[in-house]
């Protein structure tokens, strides 16, 4: 499946969705002006990826998704939740999916945001603190 790579901008995060190299990450600041267009392409990619996974039924490999946000606005939060729901469904279907939620040292708000996401989608995340 083709990879999806979006470069970081001043108001949108870097996105790497690369199944060939087992790299799945969203990194940076998220408040893109056209939230639905930006996250729509990510969600569409993940939906297609999910379908291929389910069709292949290959549950051997571990897929690790990294969320490493410096900041995201309220609109982005809704979209990130949608992404987490897709990942949660895959995990429920028996795929070996792991989510790493990164947060900066002392940024307990970002840690809490991850815990909220995890709670809503019922998917235990790993919380990784980045030291300054």
């Amino acid at each position: 499946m083709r990879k999806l790579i979006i470069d970081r901008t001043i108001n949108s995060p870097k996105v790497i969705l690369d199944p060939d190299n087992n790299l799945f990450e969203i990194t940076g600041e998220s408040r893109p002006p056209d939230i639905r267009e930006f996250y729509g392409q990510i969600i569409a990619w993940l939906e297609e990826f999910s379908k291929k996974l389910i069709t292949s039924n290959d549950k051997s490999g571990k897929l690790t998704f990294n969320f490493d946000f410096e900041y995201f606005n309220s609109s982005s939060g809704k979209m990130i939740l949608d992404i987490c729901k897709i990942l949660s469904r895959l995990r429920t279907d028996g795929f070996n999916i792991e989510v790493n939620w990164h947060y900066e040292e002392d940024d307990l708000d970002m840690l809490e945001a991850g815990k909220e996401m995890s709670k809503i989608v019922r998917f235990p995340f790993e919380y990784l603190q980045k030291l300054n």
Partner: protein
Amino acid sequence: MAGPEVFFSYTGPLDYQQIDLLLIQLRETGRFRDLQKITGKRVYSVVVECLENILKHAATSDSTQNEDQPYISVGEYNDMIIISSGNLVIEKKVEKIKHCLNKLNGMNRRDLLELYENNIAKELKDNANGNGAGLGCIIMRIKSNHNLWYSFKNASDNLIYFELRISINKYHEKVNN
């Protein structure tokens, strides 16, 4: 009573490009850079939500009077960081805004987080534009951990000028993990 000592402010029309510029300016402001990381992040978050709310929801007017222009300011007062914003709204939105803010002000942190959880998925379904002001206000209230102060006053063209003030504690205990 003296008001906050403002260290960042802007008055005028907004678009996404202007918001990007303002946020760069805010981050480069010395008083902002000197804040504890968690305080700075909360201030930043609230400023973004304020600016985006103004952009998405403010009424427009042909008035060129300064007091009708949207504004945002960040200042310091009594170990609190005060974020103030103002914009025109249409009169029929006033009661809804009041109801929303009064509801948030009456809630504790646990209730706010629950409200956030309940609303985040709901707004995705119900709001085709994905730009509900409710979630932004909930976040501002959570980040602030103080009541949101607001006022309405008559403005030009039968519009109402809405002001919002959000207070954030300047100092937070450092957490050792």
